[in-house]
């Protein structure tokens, strides 16, 4: 197969370099089509995500030298940042990308949709033909096989997703849950945003600086509460995400105990992602309180990542077998 893949990703190039090569989604088809204007290029598909920009080009020319030269010139190829795969190596690489094995978060699923979309744009722009159509369709099939036959996508890989899974275990549907954020820092923002995506009913933000609380509340569509008044809204709260810079505990047993009756002893999920910790350890001993700190969540992330890492060999084997099959088929066809 006269195929070549050129690209850069989060491992080969820093973000400032990746930014220069990034292509907006809506331009992918047009750019792929433009590449087929080169004399040696028959088919082309550009893929561009926040962590990678790659191009797959195919030619009927048995010698890849011309195509390589032309594409490199067109792209502004820089050997210090770009990688290059040819023929079966390029096929295996695409399969690894589609399966999430080449992603920053191992096994992530978003990449599958992104590659599919990039291929659709190129296809609609008539930049693909027999070789790339077959290759991409096959890679999607292999990607699906990898995900169904292994557990590469199981387990959580970020503190936010661990917290989210736990919240759903405790409250089932977050659509009926109210989340309170104590401290308007970055970690709180990321965690609460993932919960908003799952449709939490209400977000309350409190911070020593009321202006910062208001700013975060405006950003996430929540309500700001003054720092000395957070206990007043606690009866309606189900999840607390605390991430302040305080050196002394912010949430103490003496804050929660008097609220228990008002809350009718409903479960309360406390996520302490501050360092030093914001929530007194003894709060977790209250029967209906589930307290998780950063260390516990981080450990769970490591377990998730390790689980995915264990699956890599199995995934690579599936990809290797499939690529070999494709290679054999190709050789049989050409004989």
């Amino acid at each position, binding site marked *: 197969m006269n195929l070549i893949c050129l690209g850069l990703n989060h491992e080969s190039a820093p973000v400032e370099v990746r930014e220069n090569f990034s292509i907006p989604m809506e331009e992918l088809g047009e750019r792929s089509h433009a590449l087929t204007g080169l004399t040696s290029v028959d088919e082309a598909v550009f893929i561009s995500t926040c962590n990678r920009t790659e191009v797959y080009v195919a030619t009927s020319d048995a010698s890849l030298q011309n195509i390589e030269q032309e594409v490199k010139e067109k792209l502004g190829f820089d050997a210090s940042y770009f990688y290059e795969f040819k023929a079966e190596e390029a096929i295996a690489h695409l399969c690894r990308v589609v399966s999430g094995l080449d992603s920053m978060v191992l096994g992530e699923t978003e990449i599958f949709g992104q590659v599919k979309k990039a291929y659709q744009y190129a296809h609609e722009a008539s930049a693909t033909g027999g070789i790339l159509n077959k290759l991409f369709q096959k890679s999607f099939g292999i990607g699906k096989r990898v995900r169904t036959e292994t557990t590469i996508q199981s387990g959580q890989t970020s503190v936010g997703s*661990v917290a989210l*899974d*736990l919240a*759903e*275990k*405790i*409250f*089932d*549907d977050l659509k009926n849950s109210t989340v309170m954020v104590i401290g308007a820092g970055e970690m709180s923002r990321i965690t609460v945003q993932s919960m908003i995506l799952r449709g939490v009913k209400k977000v309350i933000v409190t911070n020593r600086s009321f202006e910062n609380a208001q700013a975060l509340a405006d950003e996430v569509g929540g309500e700001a509460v003054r720092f000395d008044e957070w206990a007043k809204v606690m009866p309606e709260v189900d999840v607390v995400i605390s991430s302040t810079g305080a050196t002394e505990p912010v949430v103490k047993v003496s804050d929660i105990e008097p609220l228990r*009756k008002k*809350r*009718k*002893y*409903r*479960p309360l999920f406390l996520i302490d992602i501050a360092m030093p910790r914001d929530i007194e350890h003894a709060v*977790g001993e209250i*029967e*209906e309180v*589930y307290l*998780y700190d950063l260390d*516990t969540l981080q450990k*769970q992330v490591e*377990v998730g990542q390790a689980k995915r890492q264990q699956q890599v060999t199995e995934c690579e084997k599936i990809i290797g077998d499939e690529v070999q099959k494709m290679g054999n088929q190709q050789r049989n066809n050409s004989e």
Partner: protein
Amino acid sequence: MILSLLIAAILSGLAGVIGVRAVLADQQRSRWTLFLMVLSFGCQMFWLGLRGEERAGCPLLDNGEILVFLAWSVSLFYFIVGSTYRVTLLGMFSAPVVSAMLLSALIPGMLDTDPQPIQNVDYWGEMHSAVSVLSYGALALGAVSAVMFLVLDKRLKAQDMNSGLFKKLPAVPTLIGSVIRLTVIGVFFLTVGLACGFKMQISEAGKLHLYAGAFVWLLYVLLLGVWFVRGMVPRKMSLFMVVLFVVSLSVFAVL
């Protein structure tokens, strides 16, 4: 005839084993559990049907019959609760309970080897027995759900999120919701059962049995009242449900 009971016990036992294996192996939910429970339920129905013909009435006279009827009732409520909930883990937890009840019924002396037809059928008495045992089925399954919640609560408190059991257990509101729903259904049937009981012809021993039943009913009503009016820690509620169900079984000892 006894063979159908033995087969029912084996099938539900097998359903439990398959459920446990699926959880331990972190596999997707096993539909075999449900299938085997359906087969076991069929065998229980078959046995109860034959026994009913022999008794010429509701087969609820000896301890063995009560246990079989109770197992049938637990199985029935297991099928009635929601499908998503049923196929995940309730089967794994309730199948061994059903199996244990059926095996206990098979212990020599539990079942009357020569069941005689009931003379002078008292319809209030028949209703009392049938509806009360049905209520115990719901309460038993409520207790099973409470055990499931206690397991989940322990894992959440211990911050142990990696076991297959933790992943497969339904969320807290689902479990607590089931505990409450099944208890409310159980208390409703128990109320009807007791009302019928007070209308039937009662011996002195029967009176004691009825009073014990009424005491159990009162405890359940109190527990539900506290839950709905004042609120209660889910863990305490679940513990009470399990303990109360075990204690409530003593009602049958006063027969």
